[in-house]
């Protein structure tokens, strides 16, 4: 067939510059399309291009940067480019994992936005042939004083919980940060981890001429049309109005889809399977075809729809949830249908793999879209923007944090500590994770509330440790260092629980990349992440890019979040973060410094995001991890908790009262560092430090000395009744546990359950339609 048979469809809008612009296609990109096709595109084709060439699907501003990240290691079975990355663990068992963002949908409809984010990442993992075993989430919101923020926060948490709980995958960890920079543009990143046997790994590569393409699962409605390009635009008031129809999640159908998909994969009847995620049918079919370098044809009239009168354009771009695209072996259609029917799911053959090198869409007999070869995917433009640091941020970094005058009350470090413990970013997130089923599947050895979660892998004595971390303020003030820290902190968390960090997935949440200041952040953060990943030998196996996180108030902090997977060869090495036994020595691995810049202390106590973030040396972090793991392997470590937000004092306090019903006390003497500024010593966020409790400090110090990690005994664990005590030369500060524990545990419940309602209406003007 020639291309000339593609003709405009009656009733479709005319192709005008305005329409092209509305689809987010630049004039240069439009020319590229016309050149590729040798003619004017049809409306359906414009829709397809706008979806596939959106940032969300094409990574056009980030691909060259992402290519610089390390992706290989002997244990990596699947690197970037598939639905999820996969690493080998032990005895033929592997884990698949990936993180994905649902920032823009969650800003509009927090409950459904977050729920469907969880649904999507679950599908990414089970389409690799892996059974999901754990979910994590990384969340960013504005300050909780705003009713709209409380609405977003409670809706997002409920959405994540309801979806994962219903599907039966435990949510075992995450992080929540509150910072003015995310007001109006919350970040919702969800990570999923699944387990498979190595031989069960399946890839989303279409192949085999004549093989049928089958749509599976929920019917297609008009949900979220243009979700993908919507996620690639600033959230302005204008597009608040042209807001797409919200996708609604149905976790019940997802659970059926999960079971049916795993059964299908294991049945041998299918060649490939992929989630219909962002840009739905279009992106799943085009990407599967491109990976296999084959042609495909799809007939939109065969797609089961939920609503009448849907056009090919709508069917192709719909983002209805809980749908999959499957390529089956020819002649096995019935067997496929039978498996799905057992799970009450529909399947419809909607197309096939063809020899002709084209991506073709028909509406019955009529061709409504046709692209040559796989050029739709491979010809997507790539942009490299000039990078230039924002002068405002460079100036903020240059400011001296030690010049900030302390409040009078800070003379008592306990006062400051209490303020920090009640900062919602530091305070216990139990209010959040109690709403998540963290125990279903009865494999959660360490659930939320610790440095990293630990999940056992049935049939082995091994486990995986999981953590998700990021600090946007560090990245804003120094993207390179911030990128390094994000990876190193995630690795440290995993190591504290007794696991060897093995690989990462990452989510790059940034502003508008066409602005040189944002591109500078993106480029440097990725460079910093790459440096840390290379040194720690934790390659990147996948991830997600979410750009255009801006709103009329400004851009968000550039926020890469790192999902780290570590491996424990034996569950005997699982290490808690909380102090366990009275009388144990407290050892600090790593060293204290005078650094105070970019700290939670400056933000919480002084409202400032200034100064240089703490230095981060990945080689030193690697030594720290090696020493920690060796000590844990020798049974020398009773608990380990890393120093992050709030510094050493907060890490000690958390170790003592992380569990409300099992608090302990401590006495520490930091006189060795008496010459450091007091607030830097206690609240500065110097990297590479871990607080350990141990019955055998000498043996621990010996391991540290051998590996070249600074280590010192700084005190001992006491009973809760003895409270906490800091001695620093002439300074001594004490407190009972209760006021500190109250600050830590009661802050978020106090705000969220304290009676001030969470309102949705603040940002929306809405008239009743049926009143």
């Amino acid at each position, binding site marked *: 067939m020639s291309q000339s048979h593609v003709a405009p469809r009656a009733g479709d809008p005319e192709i005008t510059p305005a329409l092209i612009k509305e689809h987010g296609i630049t004039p240069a990109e439009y020319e590229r399309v016309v050149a590729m096709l040798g003619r004017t595109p049809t409306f359906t084709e414009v829709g397809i291009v706008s979806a596939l060439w959106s940032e969300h699907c094409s990574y056009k501003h980030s691909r060259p940067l992402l290519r610089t990240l390390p992706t290989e290691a002997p244990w990596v079975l699947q690197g970037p480019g598939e639905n999820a990355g996969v690493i080998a663990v032990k005895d033929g068992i592997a884990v698949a994992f990936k993180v994905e963002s649902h920032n823009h949908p969650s800003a*509009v*409809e927090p*409950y*459904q936005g977050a729920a469907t984010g969880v649904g999507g990442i679950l599908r990414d993992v089970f389409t690799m042939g892996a059974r999901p075993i754990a979910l994590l989430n990384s969340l960013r919101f504005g300050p909780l004083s705003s009713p709209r923020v409380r609405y977003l926060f409670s809706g997002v948490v409920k959405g994540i919980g309801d979806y994962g709980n219903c599907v039966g995958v435990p949510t075992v960890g995450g992080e929540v940060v509150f910072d003015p920079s995310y007001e109006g543009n919350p970040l919702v990143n969800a990570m999923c981890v699944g387990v498979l046997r190595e031989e069960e790994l399946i890839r989303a590569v279409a192949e085999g001429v004549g093989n049928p393409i089958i749509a599976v699962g*929920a019917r297609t*409605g*008009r*949900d979220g049309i243009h979700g993908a390009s919507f996620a690639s635009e600033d959230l302005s008031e204008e597009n608040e109005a042209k*807001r797409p*129809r*919200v*996708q*609604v999640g*149905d976790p*019940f*159908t997802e659970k059926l889809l999960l079971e049916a998909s795993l059964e299908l994969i294991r049945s041998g009847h299918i060649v490939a399977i992929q989630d219909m995620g962002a840009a739905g049918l279009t992106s799943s079919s085009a990407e599967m075809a491109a990976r296999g370098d084959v042609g495909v044809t799809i007939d939109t009239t065969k797609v089961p729809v*939920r*609503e009448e009168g849907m056009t090919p354009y709508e069917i192709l771009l719909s983002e*209805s*949830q809980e749908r999959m695209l499957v390529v089956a072996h020819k002649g096995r259609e019935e067997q496929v249908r039978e498996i799905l029917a057992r799970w009450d799911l529909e399947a419809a053959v909607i197309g096939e793999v063809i020899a002709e090198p084209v991506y073709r869409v028909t509406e019955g007999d009529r061709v409504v879209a046709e692209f040559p070869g796989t050029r739709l995917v491979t010809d997507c433009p790539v942009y490299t923007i000039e990078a230039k640091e924002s002068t405002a941020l460079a100036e903020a970094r240059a400011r001296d944090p030690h010049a900030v005058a302390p409040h009078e009350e800070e003379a008592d470090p306990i006062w400051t500590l209490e303020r920090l413990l009640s900062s919602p970013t530091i305070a216990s997130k139990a209010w959040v994770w109690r709403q998540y089923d963290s125990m279903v599947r009865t494999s959660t050895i360490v659930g939320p509330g610790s440095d990293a979660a630990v999940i056992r892998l049935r049939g082995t004595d091994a486990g995986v440790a999981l953590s998700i971390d990021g600090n946007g303020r560090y990245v804003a003030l120094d993207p390179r260092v911030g990128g390094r820290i994000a990876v190193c902190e995630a690795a440290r968390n995993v190591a504290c629980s007794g696991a060897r960090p093995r690989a990462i997935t990452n989510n790059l949440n940034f502003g508008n990349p066409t602005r040189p200041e944002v591109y500078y952040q993106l480029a440097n953060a990725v460079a910093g992440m790459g440096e840390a990943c290379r040194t720690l030998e934790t390659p990147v196996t996948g991830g997600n890019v979410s750009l255009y996180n801006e709103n009329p108030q400004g851009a968000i902090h550039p926020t890469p979040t790192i999902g780290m997977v570590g491996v424990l060869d034996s569950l005997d090495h699982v290490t808690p973060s909380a102090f366990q036994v009275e009388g144990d020595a407290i050892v600090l691995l790593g060293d204290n410094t005078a650094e105070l810049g970019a700290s939670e202390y400056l933000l919480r106590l002084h409202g400032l995001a200034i100064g240089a973030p703490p230095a981060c040396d990945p080689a030193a972090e690697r030594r720290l991890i090696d020493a920690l793991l060796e000590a844990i392997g020798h049974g020398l470590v009773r608990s380990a908790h890393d120093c992050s937000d709030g510094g050493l004092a907060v890490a000690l306090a958390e170790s003592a009262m992380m569990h409300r019903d099992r608090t302990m006390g401590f006495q520490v003497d930091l006189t060795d560092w008496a010459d450091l500024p007091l607030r830097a010593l206690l609240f500065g966020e110097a990297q590479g430090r871990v607080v350990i409790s141990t019955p055998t400090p000498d043996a621990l110090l010996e391991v540290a000395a051998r590996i070249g990690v600074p280590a010192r005994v700084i005190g001992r664990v006491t009973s809760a009744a003895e409270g906490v005590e800091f001695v620093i030369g002439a300074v001594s500060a004490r407190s009972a546990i209760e006021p500190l524990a109250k600050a830590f545990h009661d802050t978020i419940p106090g705000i969220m359950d304290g009676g001030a*309602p969470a*309102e*949705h*209406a603040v940002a*929306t003007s*809405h008239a*009743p*339609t*049926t*009143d």
Partner: protein
Amino acid sequence: MTRFRVAIHIVPRRGILDPQGKAVADALHTLGFASVGDVRVGRHLVLDTDAESAEAARDAVRRMCEQLLANPVTEDFHIATVEPA
């Protein structure tokens, strides 16, 4: 001031997926109610409020719906009745 009793219906907006409605329809079919078609499941609120007039009560309730009771993105609300309590 008079006390009014107001009934409000809040239903998922047409075109928005209503998995609950679908599950209920399927269950009714299984129970033998074959002629049941579409089912939508929403919320039914009854509230008492004091106001100068029925119109004032209706206005207040409309604002309550906009600010809190109905989700502006996914739901439509309808003030069904306003009657002296």
